[in-house]
């Protein structure tokens, strides 16, 4: 029976680090046990299974940047932010409050013209 081609799920931290070093980011990091995660998780009610599919520490070094040249002020990024950290500036463009952005990359994915870039500093 052929299986559906799905997204690659990686459960061990060492493997995730290995792939990240090779600049291959096409995976989901979903560790199953505390030992697989080098840092503590954010909430403990799920019995210690880290709650982030991609733990925040892997996103350390990632940044979301907006390109005003391409931006059409459509508002899709503002509507889709799950924390509400995107605000409208006086000139009508949108700006991100970097103090609270974590980042997740939703705004980069929904932008219809690709004006938002979501990548790591070392890329």
């Amino acid at each position, binding site marked *: *029976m*052929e*299986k*559906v*081609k*799905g*997204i690659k*799920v990686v459960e061990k931290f060492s493997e995730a680090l290995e792939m990240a070093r090779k600049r291959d980011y096409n995976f*989901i990091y*979903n560790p199953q046990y505390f030992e697989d995660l080098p840092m503590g998780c*954010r*909430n403990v*009610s*799920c*019995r210690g*299974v*880290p*709650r*982030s*599919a*991609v*733990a*925040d520490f892997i*996103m350390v070094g990632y940044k979301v940047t907006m390109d005003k040249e391409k931006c059409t*002020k*459509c*508002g*899709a990024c*503002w*509507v*889709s*932010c*799950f*924390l*509400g*950290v995107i*605000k*409208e500036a006086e000139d009508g463009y949108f700006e991100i*409050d970097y*103090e*609270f952005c*974590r980042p*997740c*990359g*939703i705004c*980069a*994915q*929904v932008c219809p013209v690709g004006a938002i870039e*979501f990548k790591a500093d070392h890329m």
Partner: protein
Amino acid sequence: MLKKYDEVFQVKEEPMNPGGRSCLGCGGGIVTRMVLKAVGPNAVTTVGSCGTNTTNHFPVGQMSTIPIPIGILGAPGAALSGLEVAARVKGNEDAIVVGMLGDGDASDIGFGNLSACFERGHKVIVVVVDNQGYSATGGQRSGTTGLKAWTRSTPKGKSRPPKYLPFIMLAHGAPYVATCSVGYPEDLFERVKKATKRENQPAFIQCINPCPMSWKTHPSMTVEVCKRAVTSGIWPLWEYERGTFRRTIVPKKLTPVEDYLSLQGRFNHLTGDDIEEIKAYIKDLNETVDKYAEVYSKYSEYQPATVV
């Protein structure tokens, strides 16, 4: 600003204080934002289980800017009923009582409560933040978990289709029932705005959103995966308002369901046969929705759906 976002944009204040502890890419955050924007400041709310842990932790600070009794897992309908009656006794006739229940709270542990609240006809709005599982306890199955999905308690895939709550609440005689998706947040805002009208209460809105941990999706794909849920037909969007039934957002052409399933790690184990079962389920569900539309929509004027 796109025209469809104009109405949401009227509410410029963020009703959630920053610094929430939800997981990266949590769809529930988008639902909370839209619902709280739509109901305004003269409101009181309750949250489900994930909401308990992520929105309010002492002393980090409270995420919600409106009052909220927490920890009511298992009795959401009762708490909403009590809040509503107490608000009227205290003389606040315009207060909106909105509950953001988890799907486990609405369909399993709190189902009896929810049913009784609707049977008594309290003027409340119930928004079900449907992430298809018990996310707060690690990602076990719930009544609304999708067909064939992996969860921590169904490692080989859930063998039965989800409990379709919107039809159940229609049978309670609720004047307003709708389905939404975080793929279209402006649509959720509009539905909740309609639900704030007194004649539309008790209102029931079920909004599908991903839990990146139990769905095994990439955080940046939160909005995209729920868009594909609508365009593949596995989660049709419709609203029923006091005798009229219409589809709110329809895809121009149904996209293949494999596009929706391949974004999620919880469907990695599916075989060809499983996909056929899911396609049959989609066909059945959409046929039923169309039958409801046929029966109900002849009683009022027809408002065309948005085509995406």
